[in-house]
């Protein structure tokens, strides 16, 4: 049954090639744009290198001091994280690093812009970097403020002119020479809590790690033993924060410290939105994005509906015959929906291919440093879901219209729409 429907669908598609082209153009481009956006989303907050175990990770990246009518928000300071996050009992590991900054290395008379990050040794255990050569720096090196660095492949190429065999050589950053101990694959700049070109021990930074202020320029990454432990960690951290004294800053009497341990998605949104409510505006953002995506699909869907209605009128005599031989409205609606889904899935496949090409172009354009956007299982699934939604959205009304055709008039080839 299904097979014969598909055969009919295929024949119908071949019969009016221009209509098929219009439909496929609309579907595939719409899905391509949605897929590109989804892939970018997935490569920003999904389980990718170095946050492969993203379901076990929590991030603490913003700290707000609030009082009625005024507030100050920034990254938390090293000392705050050391005092209130490091001793937490529920996480397996806690890593503290700087929020990232940029620096310049001079090679002769050329300048090389580098993004730097100072981290502790746990950073390399909490996250999963792909080491090409060498190793991360360890705890004793961090404690002794040894001048060692891990660099990525691009930096190695730009600085040494080669992407291999640079261990033991020196990079000079801010007038200080660091020995390269490890070489990792490039991390996309969209990974804002782990990305850098050069990683160095936090004890070698100019950051004043003894400054007792709460506001500073660090972040903490927490690794849970199991994904199920996440709520327990958040609860423990909330308790600790509630017990922390509220500091004074510039003579302002703050009433509350707002800082949360949260998922990569929430932390990323918070980094952008700078909100310091418990939700960080994720709910609102999701609402807006879903609404915009639907709105964006609406126009091509309407277009498809229009074309589908025209197509059905074209086939009115076929429908008349089927009705005259006793096909129910339900059967006809079913058949048409399947035909339409077939069309949109075909469009989805095309869209997927175009999205892959588009992402490849984006990677090559260097718009965002070191991106390796691509199609993975989740994006493929997204394409499938979007195609089905699109197919149903654009198929229901024409199918309903089709089932309403009167057999007699339809046989005559007339239309009553």
């Amino acid at each position, binding site marked *: 049954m299904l097979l014969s429907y598909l055969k009919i669908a295929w024949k119908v598609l071949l019969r009016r090639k*221009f*209509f098929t082209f*219009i439909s496929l*153009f*609309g579907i595939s*481009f*719409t899905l391509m*744009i949605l897929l590109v956006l989804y892939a970018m989303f997935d490569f920003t907050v999904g389980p990718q290198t170095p946050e492969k175990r993203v379901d076990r990770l929590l991030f603490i990246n913003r700290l707000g001091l609030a009082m009625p009518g005024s507030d100050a928000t920034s990254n938390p300071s090293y000392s705050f994280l050391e005092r209130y996050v490091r001793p937490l009992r529920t996480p397996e590991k806690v890593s503290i690093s700087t929020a990232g900054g*940029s*620096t*310049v290395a*001079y090679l002769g*008379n*050329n*300048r090389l812009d580098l993004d730097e990050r100072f981290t502790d040794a746990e950073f390399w255990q909490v996250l999963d970097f792909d080491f090409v050569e060498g190793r991360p720096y360890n705890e004793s090196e961090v404690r002794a403020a040894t001048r060692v660095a891990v660099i990525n492949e691009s930096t190695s190429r730009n600085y040494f002119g080669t992407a291999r065999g640079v261990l033991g050589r020196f990079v000079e950053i*801010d*007038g200080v020479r660091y020995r390269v101990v490890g070489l990792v694959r490039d991390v996309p700049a969209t990974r804002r809590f782990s990305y850098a070109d050069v990683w160095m021990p936090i004890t070698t930074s*100019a*950051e*004043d790690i003894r*400054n007792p202020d709460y506001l500073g*320029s660090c972040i903490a990454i927490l690794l849970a033993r199991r994904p199920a432990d996440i709520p327990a960690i958040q609860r423990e951290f909330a308790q600790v924060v509630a017990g922390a004294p509220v500091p004074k800053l*510039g003579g302002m009497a703050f009433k509350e410290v707002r800082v949360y341990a949260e998922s990569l998605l929430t932390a990323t949104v918070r980094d952008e939105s700078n909100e310091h409510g418990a939700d960080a505006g994720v709910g609102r953002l999701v609402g807006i994005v879903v609404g915009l995506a639907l709105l*964006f699909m*609406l*126009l*091509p869907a*309407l*277009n*498809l*509906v*229009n*074309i589908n*209605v*025209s*197509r059905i*009128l*074209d086939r009115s005599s076929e429908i008349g015959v089927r009705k005259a031989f006793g096909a129910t409205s339900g059967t006809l609606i079913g058949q048409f929906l399947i035909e339409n889904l077939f069309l949109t899935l075909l469009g989805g496949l095309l869209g997927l291919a175009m999205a892959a090409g588009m992402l490849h172009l984006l990677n090559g354009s260097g*718009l965002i440093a070191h991106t390796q956007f691509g199609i993975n299982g989740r994006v493929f699934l997204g394409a499938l879901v979007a195609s089905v939604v699109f197919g149903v959205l654009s198929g229901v009304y024409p199918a309903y219209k089709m089932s309403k055709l009167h057999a007699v008039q339809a046989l005559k080839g007339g*239309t009553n*729409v």
Partner: protein
Amino acid sequence: MIRHLFTLIWNRRRANFLLVTEILLAFVVLFAVGSLLVYNQQNYRSPLGFEYGQVWRVTIDPGSQPEAERTATLQQVVQRLQSIPGVQYLAYITSNTPFSGNSSNTDISRTKKEGASIGVNVYGMGDDMAKVLGLSIAQGRWFDKRDDAGTRPPILLSQDAQEALFPQQSAVGQLVYNNGGEYQVVGVVPNFRADGDLASPKPAIFRRMSLQDSSFAKLSSFVSGFRLLVRVQPGAGAALERQMNTEITAIGKGWKVGITPLSKQRAAQLKKVLTPIVAMVLSCVFLVVNVALGLFGVLWQTINQRRSEIGLRRAMGASAGAISGQVVGEILVVTTFGLVLGLGVAAQFPLLGVLGVSVGVYLTAMVLATGLIYALTAICALYPSRLAAGIHPAVALREE
């Protein structure tokens, strides 16, 4: 004739409902993107008010150096930088440097009491900044040594700030109030748009920034360091940059220095602002092409269905021109229905004034979108109308 067409379409309103909705949506999309483009283009065309070509921004982060020692070290740094041959002028500036994306806002008013105040960008700048940024002075003067002895702190206004506060008169010599402080206006400069080429114009005020100021050192701990703008000799490049970097770190041990040409920052900022706009325009182009193709297909199909009707009209003596005129006319009437609804939606924006954009921008966008939609539908209808005109009455009527 036109009335007749309206009646025809109105009678088939159920069948045309989807087309009208599609045109309505297409119009709204074009209007939104058009408003955005017109708005940005307007901003892009208004002058920045300063020259950024040979200017570098120097960021200095004193790191863990105690606050008390910072100003002394900075003074040495500045003297050393001034002695480098490639450096022409340099001056201090607050963290909201041009094209940086940082901003600092405040309210100023003519009276001590609250009320009648306007929101402005506030910049702190050193005495040589007028030379560094090539600022032209419209009235009065820039900050100089005379301000050391002044009883009230000096302040400069931008042209639009003066017009808002002192309409039809000169602001020089007047007093303005900000956060309870009293300032004396010493000069007026043309509109200053350091927020960037595409940012909306905003009035600006300038405060004097000098090392004698007690708040100066404190500032560095809040905004992670000091900032200087340096005008360099034309043609200066990485060699000078490296020299400045080593000179500064030689004096300030453990200081972190960042040197960026303003032109580079401007390019980075433009890229950041333009990327989403370009993506949006591309999506919009795709949507419009999609709508056009769909419209074309539907019209083509309609012509096929109405062969007998058209054949009959031809048989009754209608000319080919009259037939194609009818097809194009009909689709333009459908478009008009969609556009009237769309204009109804679009008119809400200037009426409610939700986004604080001037009415002119919306009107231009409306005119553009309306023209584009009419042109698009007319082009889409052209080929089907030729097809309809080519129908031979004898063939069409025999099919019946």
